[in-house]
């Protein structure tokens, strides 16, 4: 077995670009999924009943589907729905956002529900409106409980961006497998890919641990 690790260095430009796309996808997805998740959570908690049902159905549906299937589905259905050719990157972004929004909505809902009802009642007894009670009493406490969960969703998202490689989004996994196919340096490229993911993901996983210790709920 002869190994030639030079191939990794020769293709460094492509790998760096792929890594940048991976990071970009993670940030962009979260930027979309945070506000959308909040909206869906609020709809699910306080909206008119049929809308509440719809929001619940959306969350349950996407939480119970493999992401890779959503990616394929978006790849074939988005162009038909919108009538225009959507780039793989946008398609992947849409699929990731649909998935993460559902998870975030559930996180927000659980966070708000975790604050005991008595607190809202007490706030209303003191003359606050429902919205005020939510804004001043519930949300500040809920945020502390939501943050650790969001942090682990973030790491999952970072890892799940690798799945959009199946529709040829040129992120890290796709680029590495492309180079592998061109150069036949299978072991070197796949190991390099794993190491790059590890270098990026390991500190994130450790940071999540720290956030979870820092914000642990003690009642």
């Amino acid at each position, binding site marked *: 077995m002869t190994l030639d690790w030079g191939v990794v260095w020769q293709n460094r430009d492509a790998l760096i670009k792929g890594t940048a796309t991976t990071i970009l996808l993670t940030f962009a997805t979260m930027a979309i999924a945070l506000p959308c998740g909040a909206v869906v959570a609020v709809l699910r908690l306080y909206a008119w009943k049929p809308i509440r049902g719809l929001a619940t159905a959306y969350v349950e549906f996407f939480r119970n*589907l493999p992401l890779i*299937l959503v990616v394929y589905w978006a790849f074939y259905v988005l162009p038909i729905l919108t009538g225009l050719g959507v780039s793989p990157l946008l398609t992947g972004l849409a699929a990731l956002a649909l998935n993460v929004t559902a998870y975030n909505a559930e996180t927000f809902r659980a966070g708000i529900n975790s604050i005991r009802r008595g607190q809202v009642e007490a706030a209303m007894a003191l003359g606050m409106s429902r919205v005020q009670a939510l804004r001043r009493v519930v949300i500040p406490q809920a945020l502390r409980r939501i943050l650790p969960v969001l942090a682990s969703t973030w790491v999952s998202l970072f890892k799940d961006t690798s799945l959009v490689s199946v529709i040829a989004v040129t992120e890290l996994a796709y680029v590495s497998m492309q180079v592998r196919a061109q150069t036949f340096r299978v072991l070197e490229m796949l190991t390099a890919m794993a190491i790059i993911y590890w270098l990026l993901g390991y500190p994130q996983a450790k940071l999540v641990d720290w956030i979870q210790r820092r914000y642990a709920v003690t009642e």
Partner: protein
Amino acid sequence: MEFDFAVITDHARFLASGVGVSLLLATGFIVALLRLYGPPWLKPAVVLYIDSMRAIPVLVVLVWTFFALPIVTGLTMPPFFAALLGLTIHLAAYAAEIVRAGIESVRPGQTRAALALGLSRSQILRRIVLPQAIVRMLPAFGSLLSITIKDTAIASVIAVPELMRQSETVAGQSFQPIEVYTFAMLVYFAMLFPVTRGIDLFYRRVAHLGRS
């Protein structure tokens, strides 16, 4: 539209997924016990393994076990075993974390009390800690099971003929990708929704056993 239902109904495959899940749980338990009670020199390695698996995407692990591992070991594996191995290596780390959290959630005072009463370490684990811890692990294992089922879809990338891969094949043959993938979505949902709901309900019935 023809669709290969054999993928879902095939007994062998059900058996295989059963084997997969048990393998996963067993490995997870062993890893967690090593982390908690193993020899001190082994602990850093176990922690590194767990944290690395939390940092690397499952796709990367699968692709590596299928394409790169045979080069290292000189053995070629059929895609199915590569997938089983890759998924087990990846998800066992998660299982181990769940087991550890469950065991650590049992208050240390109970262990001390049991030690004072003359029970051995393994007796304490078997008779006092695990019976409570296992109940507390249930919800987390429920979501892990759902994650496992979802991750099997990723095995389509290394051509394991599971539902996802079969859908790709049918989509390619029939030129009706939208129908096929929408149908596959419904099938996955129909598989996963009862699992997650069922575990929720079951946990609510047994939750009182985990209190102390």
